[in-house]
């Protein structure tokens, strides 16, 4: 089973104070720590598990700046066979549609049974690249997958629905699946893995290696253009309590009593 895994390098913003840059359209990423996107980490793990069971190859692919090589090295260290970085200044500002076009173009001659990618990116959260890519490749897809069982010429997958419900769907191969967190337990990178990764192929492709023009990628080739970024308005007026832990506890207890829950 030959599997291509699309991963993304994202800034860890969970506890970071985000600043909008002077242009007002982008988050300043200087000083932030970058890593593999969380759902993509489950996708690469699932690909490695499928290869362990069914043989074949795992290729990790990303669209990003030079620094994004780090996430590809991580995938190689975990066990991927090869990696492809799609990098070009012209790709900057690409939305989900433009990213899907870039990946489609890089994959046009590739042989694959499955394409896996994370269900959502923690930064822009479009939840769209995988399903767009499937349509561009002319293959079926299933999104938000939390279980995969390989059958003859098909996969039987569980898709996560709302409220804990799941649906079971058969999807004919080749196919694109977008992977949810919790489907497996992602492995850590070992020292041995890092050493082995050094000798694995990491190919870099730019716009001139693709069957696309500048108008197809970046902002020019995107459907949506961000015009303004700002802090979201609060839905509730929050009262921030400060002081030592004991003082805060005292005030919270008062608030609970005032509301009749204590």
């Amino acid at each position, binding site marked *: 089973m030959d599997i291509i895994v699309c991963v993304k390098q994202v800034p860890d913003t*969970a*506890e970071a*104070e985000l600043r*909008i840059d002077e242009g007002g359209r982008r*988050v300043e990423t200087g000083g932030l720590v970058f890593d593999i996107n969380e759902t993509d980490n489950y996708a690469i793990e699932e690909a490695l598990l499928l290869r362990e069971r069914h043989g074949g190859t795992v290729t990790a692919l990303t669209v990003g700046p030079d620094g994004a090589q780090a996430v590809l090295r991580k995938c190689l260290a975990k066990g991927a066979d090869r990696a492809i970085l799609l990098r070009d200044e012209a790709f900057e500002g690409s939305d*989900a*549609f433009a990213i*899907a076009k870039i990946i489609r173009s890089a994959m046009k001659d590739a042989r694959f049974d499955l394409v896996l990618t994370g269900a959502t990116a*923690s*930064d*822009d*959260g*479009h939840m*769209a*690249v*995988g*399903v*767009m890519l499937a349509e561009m490749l002319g293959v*079926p*897809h*299933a*999104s*938000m997958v939390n279980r995969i069982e390989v059958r003859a010429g098909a996969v*039987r997958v569980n898709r*996560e*629905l*709302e*409220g*804990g419900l*799941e*649906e*079971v*769907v*058969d*999807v*004919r191969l080749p196919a694109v699946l977008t992977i949810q967190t*919790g489907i497996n*337990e992602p492995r850590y990178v070992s020292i041995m893995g890092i050493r082995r990764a050094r000798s694995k192929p990491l190919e870099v492709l730019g716009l001139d290696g693709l069957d696309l023009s500048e108008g197809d990628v970046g902002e020019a080739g995107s*459907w*949506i253009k961000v*015009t303004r*970024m700002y*802090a*979201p*308005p609060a839905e*509730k007026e*929050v*009262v921030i*309590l*400060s002081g030592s*832990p004991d003082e*805060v*506890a005292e005030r*919270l*207890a008062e*608030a*609970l009593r005032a*509301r009749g*829950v*204590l």
Partner: protein
Amino acid sequence: MKRLFVLAEHRRGEIRDITFEMLTKGRELAGEMKAELTAVLLGSGSEGFAKILAEWAERVLVVDDDRLANFNAEAYQRVLSALIREHGPALTLIGHTSFGVDLAPALAVELGMPLATDCVGLRYEDGQLTITRQMHGGKVNADAALRGAAGCIATIRPAAFEAEEGGPMGGEVVEVGSPLEGDIEVKRFIEYVEPAPGEVDLGEAEIIVSVGRGIGDAKNLSLIEGLAEALRGEVGCSRPVVDRGWLPKERQVGSSGKTVKPKLYLAIGISGAFQHVMGMKASGAVIAINKDQRAPIFGYSDYGVVGDLFKVVPALTKKINELRGAGK
């Protein structure tokens, strides 16, 4: 006549809330655009649904076909793309749900029609659609313009818009022949799998003490259990805690877990991504404890503590136990 399409979402004999939320927002937008509000209903034996939707839309397009009984993105895409090509709606609204997420991106590519996903705001400015969406787990809002004049598709975040009372619109129900031919072989719906019944039903709990990624390790959960016990409440959690196997799925609050409505909800070490917020925003009083003062959860809270949960939680547990003791 300009049209605005709203794709009705239904599952197992019920129209889902997102449909009415979209129809409410759709009515406002259709007014601004001077467009006809059209509900699109794909299903099998769904006359009952059509009657309900007719109270919410000026027109209901119905395609009835056995192959549309359960949601199948492949079948839905074929039918919906034919309808959009024929009627040319200026805007098509689809839920940003597990259903819409499986359908809209492929539909948009097939039609070459710009798509914006997970929208929490939509408006027309000089005939141009501007949408608002969130990024970085709800820490940033982005306004964005959609290219192209021929028509756009937007997926709408559940609970972003409130559903108002419908109608009476007395919309016209129009049956359309199904364009589907043959079996949908590439993708087949097999069955639904119910969540395993658990030992608690958080939906019934009056007090919930929920914990997120900030707890760091399963061995720290006793802190949260201690506080829940002091408050006579149940322990809940956000998704990462279940993904790591620290608590069972039945305790997960959020769109893919439980929707809860307790009198008191404590969010401890939970950043407040919308998937979690959707499950708890109807709670009475909300208290958030988080070391990140920019955590989105504070925007949904009545009281917030910016601090270290490992110090605040034990202090609060002790305080409550003292008060309980004194009240005996």
